């Protein structure tokens, strides 16, 4: 994937783009992106992938006017206008899934289909989400990954001092959008009926941050939504099971969204 930059009302946004055919916008999660995401390359075999760093993450500017997930959703509606793509497939993981939901309840005009991967956003009373911010790096790794793939991923953040800085920057940006209440918008639930595009939910079978009850709840609340599970996979399917991740998305889009 190639890096490029786009200016959205004064905020320089870093984009990765690659592949061809129909455009697919990938919204990353709390961990951000560092290039060690084979799932994105796999997606680019079938789609024209666009993967931005959210404002404040990675190499994108922090936008002072984008303070919470609602602002971020409107910011991305601006981005969709600026990209001048008629329709995109919207894929979001973790808080990227939450963001995709917040965008979709506002306006699905430019959205062709929606894929929610281990998505944050909902609050189910009595089913807590794990606190990614309170745990040590070792504990975090055990939450994010079901297999040993996590060690390599964490090492990839340690490859240079610049990447180490980006790791901290991403954590701060994740806190900015998702600290309180942690990883959810308690009011999101009320507006899911507004989602009127084909929706697929993808969950790692060993997910521990957003318990599987959330996958089922999303399926039940979004009209026509379908659900698939990825084996030997926790919170990061695009890193841990890249082929299954990309395959599941391609299969859904071929069957339901064309």
């Amino acid at each position, binding site marked *: 994937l190639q890096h490029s930059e786009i200016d959205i009302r004064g905020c320089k946004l870093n984009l990765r783009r690659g592949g061809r055919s129909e455009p697919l916008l990938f919204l990353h999660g709390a961990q951000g992106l560092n290039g060690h995401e084979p799932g994105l390359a796999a997606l680019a075999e079938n789609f024209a992938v666009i993967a931005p760093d959210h404002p404040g993450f990675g190499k994108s500017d922090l936008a002072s006017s984008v*303070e919470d997930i609602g602002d971020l959703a409107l910011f991305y509606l601006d981005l969709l206008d600026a990209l001048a793509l008629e329709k995109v497939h919207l894929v979001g993981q973790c808080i990227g899934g939450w963001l995709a939901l917040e965008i979709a309840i506002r306006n699905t005009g430019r959205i062709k289909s929606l894929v929610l991967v281990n998505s944050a956003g909902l609050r189910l009373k009595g089913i807590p989400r794990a606190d990614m*911010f*309170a*745990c*040590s790096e070792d504990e975090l790794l055990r939450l994010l990954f079901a297999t040993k793939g996590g060690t390599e991923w964490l090492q990839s953040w340690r490859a240079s001092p610049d990447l180490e*800085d980006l790791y*901290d*920057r991403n*954590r*701060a*940006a*994740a*806190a*900015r959008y998702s*600290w*309180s*209440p942690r990883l959810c918008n308690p009011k999101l639930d009320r507006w899911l009926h507004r989602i009127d595009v084909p929706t697929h939910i993808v969950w790692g079978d060993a997910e521990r941050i957003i318990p599987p009850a959330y996958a089922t709840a999303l399926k039940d609340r979004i009209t026509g939504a379908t659900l698939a599970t990825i084996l030997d996979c926790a919170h990061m399917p695009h890193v841990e099971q890249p082929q299954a991740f990309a395959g599941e998305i391609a299969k859904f889009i071929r069957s339901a969204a064309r």
Partner: protein
Amino acid sequence: MKIFIFHLMPYANLDMSYAEKYRAAWVVLPNTYFDPKKGHELYNRYLDELELAAELGFDGISVNEHHQNAYGLMPSPVVTASALSRRTKSARIAILGNAFCLREHPLTLAEEHAMIDCITGGRLITGMVRGIGAEYFSLGVNPAYSHARFQEAHDLVVEAWTKPGPFSFEGNFYHFDYVNLWPRPYQQPHPPIWAPSTGSTETIEWAAHPSRKYVYLQAYSPTQSVARYLNYYRECAQRMYGYTASSDQVGWSTPVYVSDTDEKAREEAKPHIEILFNRLLRLPFEMLFPPGYLSAKSLKNMRSHKRSVSGQEHTIDTLINQGIIVCGSPDTVRRQFTETHRLLGFQNLLCLLQFGTLPRDLTEKNIRLFAREVMPALQTLSDKEYAGMQVQAAE
């Protein structure tokens, strides 16, 4: 020099084997470890200790705020300050600090501080702090906005204390249509504001600003850091803002233990001070510095510092050698403070005379001995004895 006694009011009855099961004495330590009957005894004992210090001639008595932990039992220092305000007659009452920015409604604290100031006839000192990182877990406030919220809460409170009401406040975090504080504070324009910190250049630059000139108080630090940050305050005033800071604008806060001899002091303080640093202050890095709480630069510094010290437990020897605590005979302690004052010139000293599990009898002995043998000499110190930065640099 003004001498204050400072108290944390630790839960000294904590079952210290908690550390085998829980990784912190904060946030995640179940409150079933707290026995309210023991709490009743401790609160009253600790208040007695502060009242004793006021009787013995300390210039001020000081309390602070921490949430959901065994390290300090004062989620509301306003409560302890209020309890002290009618039991003391002339000592300053210093709340060092209160985290106004952790509140959804900082005006309630502004009102309470104004009440204490009126009740005491102007003896209140207001400390403004962001709260430590763990507090952002406990109270759910977003650490990524901590600095901005701190400044806005400060502006709101100072305006509420000084500007004729009613007026409206239109901030980014706080919006109030009616700001009209009854009562107004006794001291005009408002109680002195102090900025306690464990070392932050951002806080120092903010506190030293000519529109504020707040007292910067360095807490819990090796002598080297105390020197670095107090000197930075003076440099900042001179180079950034073009004025000479008064020595009244800087202070040092440290645990102190005095006994008949150096050996006896070390022996008596050892188990209790080690409990403070190794058990009550036990807090993993990620809880101490949640994402966004520190600037990127400060976090980077902290990370490299952490790598160099990780895994080390404090002993009383390391604490004394680094100057994090001051412990010894009256002579030793007096000499150490006098010498540090000669180099750094701070006109405010906060002494933590009860720490960790230090029991009632030793605490009382410590307070009395310090008040009799150490304090009088320190209270006479002024800028005349301050040799200044140039001398220090030359040395």
